[in-house]
């Protein structure tokens, strides 16, 4: 098992720089529609994935880019997929929300909670065909309220499936605060369904790695599923161009068209009581305040890990990653322009 701090740093930094390049291409209009990145979640993803071996499976959510990058999928083929090109990873058919890599047993879905049943099925196939392999499911805390995911934890428990359920908790379900829509405690919920549950600070990749190691070992030994609850901050919100963050970053421009109708609606004759309307407006203001606090600050897993390394160790990793990502972007763009 690779346990060196520099290795974890390299996994995360590679994903971070790659996703930053993806964000630039998206901002330039070269990538269409929604783009959900894992920036801020890298500590969780790297800490779990560093324990995977050949034959292990990954059930991914709509943030599948980082796990695939960390498992070594060719960066150019990922970029070509996001550009919608026929030579992309999935021939330009899936896009970033629907990434599939059969050689890695990695399947994504844009349906919230769908990684739960997917991991169970991979794990069932493992039980029959690859008894030492495991399946990992990645999802957000919002998905924990989806029936199919809760059912999956129970299914994995009663069938003793080798699944590690990884909950990446940034406290926001799309744009709704998780506390507002989640009853009880998530670890207790998972325990109640029969899984072994662990809670960890997801911005500390070494802490995640150490907990994940236990969970994966249990699964490999046939001791059934685990649930890792890992906290994180995601500075880009739900997706690039998150409307709440746009308002926070450019209040005058973004609110110009929204304040008029909002004030008119709040002041209309028929409707809720003054108190209830004030509560609504207060809740809108609180929502924006919360959005303003989504920045990484001290919770950046990449920076936290960098601080554990010597400057010489950091520089080697950084130079390699910088060169690799830049070359991938160049190659992906060049082949489009060469064809044009």
């Amino acid at each position, binding site marked *: 098992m690779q346990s060196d701090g520099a290795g974890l740093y390299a996994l995360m930094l590679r994903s971070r720089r790659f996703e930053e390049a993806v964000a630039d291409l998206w901002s330039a209009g070269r990538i269409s529609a929604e783009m959900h990145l894992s920036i801020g979640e890298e500590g969780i993803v790297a800490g779990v994935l560093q324990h995977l071996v050949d034959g292990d499976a990954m059930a991914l959510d709509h943030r599948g880019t980082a796990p695939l990058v960390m498992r070594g999928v060719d960066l150019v083929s990922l970029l070509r997929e996001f550009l919608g090109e*026929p030579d992309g990873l999935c021939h330009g058919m899936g896009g970033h*929300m629907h990434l599939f890599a059969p050689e890695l047993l990695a399947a994504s879905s844009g349906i919230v909670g769908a990684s739960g049943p997917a991991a169970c099925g991979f794990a069932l196939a493992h039980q029959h065909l690859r008894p030492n392999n495991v399946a990992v499911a990645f999802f957000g805390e919002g998905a924990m309220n989806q*029936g199919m995911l809760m059912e999956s934890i129970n299914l994995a428990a009663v069938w003793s499936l080798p699944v590690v359920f990884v909950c990446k908790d940034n406290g926001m*379900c799309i744009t709704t605060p998780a506390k*507002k829509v989640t009853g009880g405690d998530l670890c207790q919920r998972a325990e109640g369904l029969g899984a072994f549950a662990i809670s960890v600070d997801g911005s500390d990749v070494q802490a995640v790695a150490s907990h994940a190691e236990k969970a994966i070992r249990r699964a490999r030994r046939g001791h059934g599923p685990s649930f890792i609850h890992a906290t994180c901050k995601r500075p880009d919100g739900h997706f690039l161009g998150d409307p709440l963050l746009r308002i926070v970053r450019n209040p005058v421009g973004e609110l110009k068209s929204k304040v008029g109708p909002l004030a008119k*609606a709040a002041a209309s004759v028929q*409707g*809720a009581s003054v108190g209830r309307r004030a509560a609504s407006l207060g809740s809108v203001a609180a929502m924006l305040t919360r959005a303003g606090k989504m920045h990484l600050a001290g919770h950046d897993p990449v920076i936290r890990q960098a601080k554990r390394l010597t400057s010489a160790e950091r520089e080697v990793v950084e130079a390699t990653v910088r060169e690799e990502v830049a070359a991938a972007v160049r190659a992906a763009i060049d082949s489009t322009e060469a064809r044009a």
Partner: protein
Amino acid sequence: MREMTYAQAIEDALMQAMASDPRIVVFGEDVHAIRMNLFARFGESRVRPTPISESAFLGAGVTAAMGGLRPIVEIMMVDFVAVAADALINHAAKVEAFSGGRWKVPMVVRIACGGGYGDGGQHEQALWGLLAQVPGMKVVVPSNPADAGALMLSAIEDEAPVLFMEHKLLADYWLDYLADGGRTGLDYQVPEAGARGVVPDTWGSIPIPAAQVLRAGRDLTMVGVGVAVHRCLEAAERLAELGIDAGVVDLRSVSPLDVDTVCAELAKTQRLLVADEDYKHFGLAGELAAVALEAGLQPAFQRVCVERTIPYDRRREVEVLPNAARIVDAATMLMSARTPSPLSVTHTSHSRSPGH
């Protein structure tokens, strides 16, 4: 008369309805943000965000309606209805029949649908044919602001469950939210007449079904809903230049289907072209051919539909969704077939008459 966007029209009609009927409540994911104006005016007790638990809150919508509320349940995209299909197929659609007509489900399900902005085949489907197949539910698909507001009122007033499907290409806030994300200069081939238009000062409902003949035509009748209606209108202009007089019917509701209006047009033209953003097989297009046959008509038939999973790549997506060029091609094929008569139905390599 006022001018509004498609999204504003729906909100304006909802404001009118909610102000006069306190039983109307709205719930769904993120509605405090997506429906911020309704949230500000009517408060959280009537505009309530939900967990990402479609099967629970859509199922709850059914019995909330049975319990006396007039719920408007929001499912962010029709693709996600699959997660909660049980609430619709086995419950909302069944209660009236199972109770011998003694209990009804006056629920509206507000659902965004449709593609054309590069979000991939799990977030851009139409699926209205699938949903309309089950008896006991109605499905409306407005194609312009005036119809959107009016059909929202129709849906609210109806005692049956009504699925109100708003096309994302017509609703500017969905495009801003899902496609642009603050970026500018991206083009989605939005039909202008669908995205913005004149609406009445006070909203009134329109009866369902109420297909509308948007353009009378002598040579063939083109039928669709939502964005496809606008693609047909565009195709009709091009066909006119080719000397083909093509009519366009906006169904406005998929279920129930306005058979009388469609058949009245077909009786004149004897040619049916369905443009549908839903899947080709086992859906609206085939159903229209079937109802024409049942009515004793034998029109020559072509359909321009989605035939496979919608590609993420926008260049291929545009080809897979019905577009004016494909409709024009299909129409010229229809015209090249000899006009079928009830006694001798013609076959060509291009046109399969559904009579055989």
